[in-house]
């Protein structure tokens, strides 16, 4: 049985549908991500889990009990806010102790648990400090300490790292994941940053425009996007509009690209075979497009002209115009490649995907 279960949740603000019929399950001990572009409804979904918003329809179950209308203070979930929401009139100790005071814990227990929480976020001895004296990273740790001090049954994160600068963000990310695992907590983590979600989460749900597009492990989402919006949102992707040819066999499908008139062959499952005369999207990641200066006549090799080479440090992006079909390839070293020259691009069949038509 899942620990947390959202069933057909919808929520509108005025005429805007913020969350549309979302269902998802989170298992105990899981680090679960809600990923999507801004305004996709991920924060609203998290706020409904926290009890800060009420869904218009649908229900939320926790540990088998319906908690849809339970007020936030009776859920026992810890939440880390995007802006940390530290109480400016209280010092670090009192901030962390806030939830313990609300629970009327004894002084001894409070002292012990606050000290323990501050120890966990590597801020021992910071209790007497004012919160506005702390750096952004330290404030963020206090916010986490405050949420874990109440020993939450579920930990909610609303883009907690978005206010930190890049290097600190990556460092904190690692510590956060380690902390949650060590304490055996279950977490729901909202972010718009794909890299962050992939690095942190066991499982992720991608939300676009209030609708849940796909749930799965990071690798699954990246390699087998269920839908064109997921393919577009998660990393760069070459999306190739094509039509299936009648000559295709059940084991190996043949497609004709609408731009460039190239023929592409790759194996597909029989049941996901596209209809014959309807345009579909094929996708391939730029890192799976390999370039060479020799002319090849192999399968899935397209000849094109190099339009642009964008140097990006460890890797470079090469844009190719293959007879009207624009492709991106990721290469480690753009040695020998020059803008304006011809080259051939190989689209590895094992990395070509057929996206379900919309």
């Amino acid at each position: 049985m899942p620990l947390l279960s959202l069933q057909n949740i919808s929520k509108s603000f005025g005429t805007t549908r913020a969350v549309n019929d979302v269902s998802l399950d989170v298992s105990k001990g899981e680090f679960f991500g809600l990923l999507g572009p801004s305004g996709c409804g991920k924060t609203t979904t998290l706020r409904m889990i926290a009890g800060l918003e009420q869904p218009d329809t649908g229900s939320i179950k926790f540990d088998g009990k319906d908690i849809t209308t339970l007020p936030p203070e009776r859920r026992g979930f810890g939440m880390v806010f995007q802006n940390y929401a530290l109480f400016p009139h209280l010092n670090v100790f009192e901030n962390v102790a806030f939830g313990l005071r609300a629970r009327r814990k004894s002084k001894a227990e409070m002292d012990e648990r606050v000290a323990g929480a501050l120890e966990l976020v590597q801020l021992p001895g910071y209790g007497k400090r004012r919160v506005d004296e702390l750096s952004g990273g330290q404030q963020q740790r206090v916010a986490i300490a405050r949420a874990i001090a109440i020993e939450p049954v579920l930990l909610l994160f609303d883009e907690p790292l978005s206010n930190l600068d890049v290097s600190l963000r990556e460092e904190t990310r690692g510590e956060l994941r380690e902390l949650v695992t060590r304490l055996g907590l279950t977490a729901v983590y909202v972010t718009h940053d794909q890299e962050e979600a992939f690095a942190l989460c066991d499982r992720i749900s991608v939300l676009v425009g209030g609708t849940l597009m796909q749930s799965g492990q990071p690798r699954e989402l990246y390699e087998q996007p269920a839908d064109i919006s997921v393919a577009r949102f998660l990393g760069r992707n070459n999306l190739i509009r094509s039509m299936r040819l009648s000559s295709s066999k059940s084991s190996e499908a043949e497609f004709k690209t609408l731009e460039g008139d190239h023929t592409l062959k790759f194996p597909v499952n029989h049941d996901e075979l596209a209809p014959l005369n309807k345009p579909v999207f094929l996708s391939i990641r730029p890192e799976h497009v390999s370039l060479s200066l020799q002319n090849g006549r192999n399968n899935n090799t397209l000849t094109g002209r190099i339009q642009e080479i964008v140097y990006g440090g460890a890797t470079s992006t090469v844009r190719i115009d293959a007879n009207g079909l624009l492709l991106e390839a990721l290469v480690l070293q753009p040695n020998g490649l020059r803008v304006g020259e011809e080259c051939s691009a190989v689209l590895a069949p094992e990395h070509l995907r057929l996206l379900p038509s919309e």
Partner: protein
Amino acid sequence: MAKLASKSSRHRFDTSSLLLILITAVVLLYGVIYPNLSVVTSSLQQSGVWTLANYRGVLSQRIVLESILTSLGVSLATVFLCALVGVPLAFLFERYTFPARRAFAALAALPLVLPPLVGTVAFIFLCGESGILARLIQHLFRLQNSPWSLRGWPALLLFHTYTMYPFFYVFVGAGLRRVDASLAEAARSLGASGSIVLRRVLLPQLTPSLIAAALLTFMISMASFSAPLLFGGNVRVLTLEIFTARQRGDAAMAVTETVILAIISLATLVVFQRYEGTRRFVAAALKGSTRRRQPITSGRLRTVATLLAILFSIVLALPVVTLVLVSFAREGSWTTETLPAAYTTANYLRLFSEPQSSEVFINSLLMSAIAAVAALLWSFCVVTLVVRRSRSDKLKFISQGWRRLLSLLVLVPWALPGTVVAVSVAEAYGKPGLLSGSFVLVGTFWILPVVYFLRFMPLVVRALQASMEQLDPTLEEAAGSLGARAWQRFFRVTLPLVWPGAVAGTLLAFVIALGEYVASVIVFVPANRPISIAIASELRDFNLGAAAAYGVVLIGIIAISMTVAGKLERWRS
């Protein structure tokens, strides 16, 4: 209501929300709606019959028409003169630095906190025909008679300009601070000259500030009473007409004139509210660097600016200095000399030893405190209803329209001249009535605390509302997620963060009530004689020293309270 309820079917309608709505509704009904309606209905009735006869009667009298036109004329002239003084001063002191700038900046808002009656009295001592300045000129040039008399239009406009120019100075100064310096720089880089930058970039951005200041000055000037009473001479303004009509016992005329004055003031309020909105919009749209004050480098200009700053500082401080001086004058010692000839502390000793005078102080302190504390408590009810804390608010079924109406109703007593508030309360609760039953408020001690509460509670509500709107709504949500119940969230998070603003507003209401004269003079009774009435009667008896001493003590209390309020404001931010 059924429609509203069905929309939020998942929200429980709890008793505390119901109680808040009930308290707010009752206070607004009894304090704002009913008294103002009573005035309107009485103005439309003659011996129980509905008629327009009162208006026909009033408007056919030359003197009334004249007083309406005079009030409008005085107010428009006041707006013009205040702009003329306040805007250049704001430019000079907000955009440049030079020696003595701080001295003026510190004193600039002084006239705003001076109670109008005390200011008027100080002005008489300073600029009156037997005041210090007139005597000084007379002695210097050995004139037979006083060189001028402080009477009529010039006197009134001079006093209005002195007391109300800070609206322009403060609003335009704040506007200038908000203007993004890079906009002027952008205009310069596009080839605009200094005068074009001023005309096409700076002034358009200051327009909302200018209009807000103009409307506020206009409203306060329409309500002005002490100055026209004491040195208006033949200038008959509407507030004075209402007062004398009541003194004569012509209730119908007083009530009808009150409605006319109220309509003018409320119309101004409505326009003011719209411009206040745009002012906020401008502030929100512009995020950038403020231009730093430029030092004046040219030697001659620097000298002129410094001299101006010193001159204006003296002008601002003189009335208060005069008041202090006269408060130490021995009664009867100041006749034809420039300055009083003999000094004594007797005036103060009398103030604190005579039971009559200490009673006056106790009355004013007690009544102002009652009004201010009531306003503080009540403001929490109103602000909870008006400020939408978050989307998960329990009170979110109250629509935006209702919240706006509520804010407007709260502001009404603030926009209405004190004369109007006093007359309407007297009219509504002067006899047994529909809402009050057999209870008659007029003639009791409680009439003044009630009037003070109504007049000055908008200040407390606005102060608390501002604090509440600045409060980050996620703080309460965080407290909720940590397990704090509604009352714990209020007492442990909201209250500790908003109380400095609320208390600062309460102190402001308290000190303004302490010097209140306009409404007090209409409804006071021997049992609740406040300080202002004592000052006026000392002045009538030519006990100038005593009148001044009252004024100085009042200013002292105000200064202390304002310092505390200022500290609280700073502490909050």
